[in-house]
């Protein structure tokens, strides 16, 4: 191990005082059993303050989606603590998780809205469903659906459409609106803009900025440093299941500490050419694989 490998972890600043919306401590997740058992996450600790946007950057196999799924109770952690809105959910069983999700405090948006929206439900039905489950009256639910459709800049004409009748960008905005109707404190977004073209990407990113201004905490997971850099207050870098660096977005991008973060930042194409040259990238790759 060289000095370059020294932990790039910065002291977790905000949100360490117990009012965090999400507090994850020492999270371990394994897939498979016995000999097939593989570690997907190891000792991941991260907290998110109310209204804070935390970006989680990682490439294929880094465990970033596992993190999202674990925090949403879709995957069981093998060790560690997860506290959502002050509630320790670590020991929750399926029923408790369902009850928690139904309350709508945590919501989520995934990459492919076609797979997260029911293809047989119209936009309106998709939007009011979470509210009806909470026991909100249909009329009130419909009114709220319209409000949130406007928040994501979609016209009411789309209420009667099926997901298949919308463009990719519209669909993703419906998915965001659906996440918003229960007025959550925290939204987990897993690659929310990766499948979109730039006009739609800008639109979603702007909506995320507005949400942040409105005090909703966001966990924005992506492989694309660029889109995360634009909206995140802090950036956490996942590499092979471990958080190798956490810090203010500007710091992580302008002064990355961990070798992997440096390679990642140095690989991202920008309009000013990549920030590292080819020789530097080769050197970082060699260090990383050493």
């Amino acid at each position: 191990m060289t000095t370059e490998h020294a932990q790039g972890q910065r002291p977790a600043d905000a949100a360490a005082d117990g009012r965090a919306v999400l507090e994850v401590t020492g999270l371990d997740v394994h897939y498979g059993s016995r000999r097939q058992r593989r570690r997907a996450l190891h000792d991941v600790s991260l907290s998110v303050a109310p209204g804070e946007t935390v970006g989680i950057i990682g490439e294929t196999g880094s465990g970033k989606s596992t993190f999202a799924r674990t925090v949403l109770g879709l995957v069981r952690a093998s060790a560690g603590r997860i506290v959502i809105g002050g509630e320790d959910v670590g020991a929750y069983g399926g029923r408790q998780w369902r009850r928690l999700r139904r309350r709508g405090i945590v919501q989520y948006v995934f990459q492919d809205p076609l797979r997260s929206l029911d293809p047989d439900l119209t936009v309106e039905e998709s939007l009011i469903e979470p509210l009806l489950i909470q026991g909100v009256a249909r009329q009130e639910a419909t009114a709220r659906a319209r409000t949130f459709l406007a928040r994501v800049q979609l016209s009411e004409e789309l209420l009667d459409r099926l997901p298949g009748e919308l463009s990719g960008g519209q669909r993703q905005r419906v998915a965001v609106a659906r996440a918003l109707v229960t007025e959550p404190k925290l939204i987990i977004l897993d690659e929310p803009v990766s499948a979109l073209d730039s006009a739609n990407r800008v639109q979603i990113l702007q909506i995320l900025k507005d949400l942040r201004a409105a005090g909703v905490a966001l966990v924005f997971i992506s492989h694309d440093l660029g889109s995360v850099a634009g909206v995140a207050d802090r950036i956490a870098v996942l590499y092979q299941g471990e958080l190798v660096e956490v810090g203010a977005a500007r710091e992580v991008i302008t002064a990355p500490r961990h070798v992997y973060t440096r390679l990642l930042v140095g690989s991202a194409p920008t309009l000013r050419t990549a920030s590292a040259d080819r020789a530097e990238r080769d050197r970082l790759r060699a260090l990383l694989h050493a």
Partner: protein
Amino acid sequence: MTTLSELSDNAAAGTAQRAGEPDTEPDSPGTEPGTETADEPRTAVPAAAAAPVLAVRGVHISDQVTDREIVHGVSFELTPGKTVGIVGESGSGKTLTCRATLGILPPHFEVSAGSIEIAGTDIATLTPQQWTALRGATISAVFQDPASYLNPSIRVGAQIAEVIRVKKGLKRREARHRAVELLQAVQLRDPELVYGQYTHELSGGMLQRVLIAAAIAADPQILIADEATTALDVTVQAEILDLLAELRQQAGLALVVVSHDLAVVAQLCDEVLVMREGEVVEQGTTSEVLHHPRHEYTRLLIAEHDQYGLEKFLAPLTPLTPQETS
């Protein structure tokens, strides 16, 4: 390690750049952060007077069924070692333009006006046999999803060797040997091992390398990379872009790089075309387009990077003055 120049017959005719000094070219992507090399006048890559290997002249593409014109006039020229980038969103016509160049337009699409010349031959005059001779040997392409261009039940190495046997007329054993060399040239770590593997055993980045190896197996002069790095991780994308830059420098390969990401194109290309709804809304050297964008849409693409990208934290591009925009 087999260098690319040893592999390519064109190498001698192209640039004489040696391996190990990739950054000597003025517009290579490897400049220091923040330095504005793009402001320098572009020195034409290798021999400025070289005849174009690819000339696309006022190409219009129409859908014959609906009688709608989809692409409204694209023109550019490529000389050896040069790179042209096409930026645009899905549906902008960039892929159709590529497919027209490769002679593989979808059914009932046709080039309704303009001409395309590959190495001096107007492709409108080509017979299917002539096309087959041209593809791979003169013009080649890699696309976004490498797995769908490889047969999952045949070892990847054998698929490259097949290209070599058919296109170069080599015997089995020689073709195998050369396929391994190509796998090494695209910087796969264990080329012998990869040769015997199947697509499902390889990662997306490795598959794209395999496909690039197959694409350059018959020493083409032109390589079209249509969203070739879009599906890859950023660090892998950088490796593939570095590889393409190296191919260009060492083998004198002329590149057409198609991407939805202006930054990818900016990193690699001498000239940029920005397409929108079938129209080329902006065309010029990379530095002109980045520093003095004329069209609203190009400015939007740049603004997206500046507001939401890493660029937010980097030194700004030269700001525009009203005089410059007119």
